[in-house]
């Protein structure tokens, strides 16, 4: 797999340099400069919202740093969690005396690193809370929902938590809205082709020319089941049915994200969205603020995911609040 890169060892740092050059509102901080912050002044007493994860998922994670979204983000090597130190750097950068929410995907390494960083932060008097994204319905049964990993749906939690923090919510309020959004967000993805880690000898996985895989992880972890490739409408029907099986009672409005895992073009996303919109409409759900595009990727992986965030008035209001980062602008 060809890539437009230099030495693979410089991939992440050159990428971050380019990101910050292109978006001068972002800055690299910390000893190894693996935490990203934005330069819009945070008022003293604002709760900080931070995230973190591996590289290779742009716009996730660092691309969502900006007013109304994340205040800081720790970033690791490709598909690796950020180091404990980078997590500390991000927490420290986001602290304005009112505590910091650590909001990231449910992966063991990321969780442990943020926990250790949080313990160090506590020693320095910074209070933290942790909320884990657990939207991938393919990764555990509903009864074990807390074991699910976090994928594309995490950005809805970013948006709501960021808006709550901007609105002056305290740490408990920010953490609890993030948790509420996580609890009401579900994602299912289907992969068509692999990505390759820069410098690796081969692709992360292989998949036959006529097959697709449901529930593939965003690092290329094996999926849950394979299918022969089928028409897009059939796939969407299957995906929407799985997502709606976990629809909370009384919900009539949803936010929708049809996400490219990387190389799947906009044209195909709109074909998927068309069917998803028809099916959600048939299920009596009104779509609010659909997002269609590459929002959470695995470099050049082929495929798409669909995320639903089941709304209530509070979440809907927070999703509509102004926010501004390199890849998502609201209001």
């Amino acid at each position, binding site marked *: 797999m060809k890539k437009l890169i230099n030495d693979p060892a410089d991939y992440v740092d050159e990428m971050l340099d380019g990101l910050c050059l292109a978006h001068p509102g972002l800055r690299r901080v910390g000893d190894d400069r693996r935490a990203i912050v934005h330069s819009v002044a945070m008022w003293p007493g604002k709760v900080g919202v931070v995230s973190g994860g591996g590289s290779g998922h742009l716009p996730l994670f660092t691309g969502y740093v900006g007013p109304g979204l994340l205040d800081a983000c720790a970033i*690791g090597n490709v598909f*690796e*969690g950020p180091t404990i*130190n980078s997590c500390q750097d991000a927490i420290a950068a986001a602290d304005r005396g009112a505590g910091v929410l650590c909001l990231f995907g449910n992966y*063991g390494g990321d969780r442990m690193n943020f926990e*250790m960083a949080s313990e160090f932060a506590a020693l320095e008097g910074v209070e933290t809370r942790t909320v884990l994204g657990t939207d991938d319905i393919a990764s555990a049964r509903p009864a074990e929902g807390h074991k699910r990993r976090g994928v594309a749906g995490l950005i809805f939690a970013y948006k709501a938590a960021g808006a709550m923090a901007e609105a002056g919510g305290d740490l408990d309020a920010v953490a609890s809205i993030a948790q509420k959004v996580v609890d009401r967000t579900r994602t299912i993805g289907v992969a068509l082709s692999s990505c390759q880690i820069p410098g690796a000898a081969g692709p992360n996985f292989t998949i036959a020319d006529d097959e697709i895989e449901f529930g593939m992880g965003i*690092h290329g972890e*094996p999926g849950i089941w394979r299918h022969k490739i089928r028409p897009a409408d059939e796939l969407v029907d299957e995906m929407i049915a799985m997502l709606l099986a976990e629809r909370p009672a009384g919900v009539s409005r949803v936010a929708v994200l049809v996400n490219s895992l990387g190389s799947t073009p906009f044209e195909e996303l709109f074909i998927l969205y068309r069917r998803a919109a028809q099916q959600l409409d048939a299920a009596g759900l009104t779509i609010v603020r659909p997002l269609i595009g590459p929002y959470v990727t695995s470099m050049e992986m082929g495929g798409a995911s669909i995320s639903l965030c089941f709304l209530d008035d509070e979440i809907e209001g927070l999703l509509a609040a102004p926010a501004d980062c390199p890849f998502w602008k609201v209001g």
Partner: protein
Amino acid sequence: MAIDVHTLADAIERANRAMGGLTDQLNAADAKLGDGDTGTMLARLIGSFAAVDLQNAPDLGAGFMALAKTGAASTGSSLGTLIVTAMMTAGKASAGQDAIEWNGLSQILLAVRDAAMARGKAELGAKTIIDGLDALARAIAGKDDPAAIAAAAREAMDQALLEFRERPSAIGRARMFAEKSVGLDDPGMLALAEIVRAVTTNHSATALA
């Protein structure tokens, strides 16, 4: 003869040399159900350990803490963070001491095991590196001869791998494929076993001595 910073430095150097041949094997083990990076991550972490100037550390506790500090700056993987936790735990247990006796090693490994369980939110029996640590700590308990400890350690790791191979994984990525994990080694436990082998074999007595 006891365990001091030189023992520690020597063990790390051996482990580091062994990683050359282990990286692909451990990546392959992880790729079966995980993301295929256990070897690469571990090689980088141990490489960063090898670059730490342990010989001049004021005492053994400080040596472990220096490793923890380096690890915190250089790894983001689950296994790496558990190893950082282990170094911090060992560092606390040996704080201010120039050396610890061989018969104190088991106690430290048990503390490491417990700290890793707390950090990883993992139970014993979940088929992780922690079960390897547990087997190791128990096998060398009460022993004070380095050669005997080395032999018991290798033996315990072989046993642990064998015993857990046919059991399902209950944690981490492999959890999602609990059934598929039957018959496979846990990459973290395999890594521990191979490193124990590398550190204890050949010049094993002198290595740990």
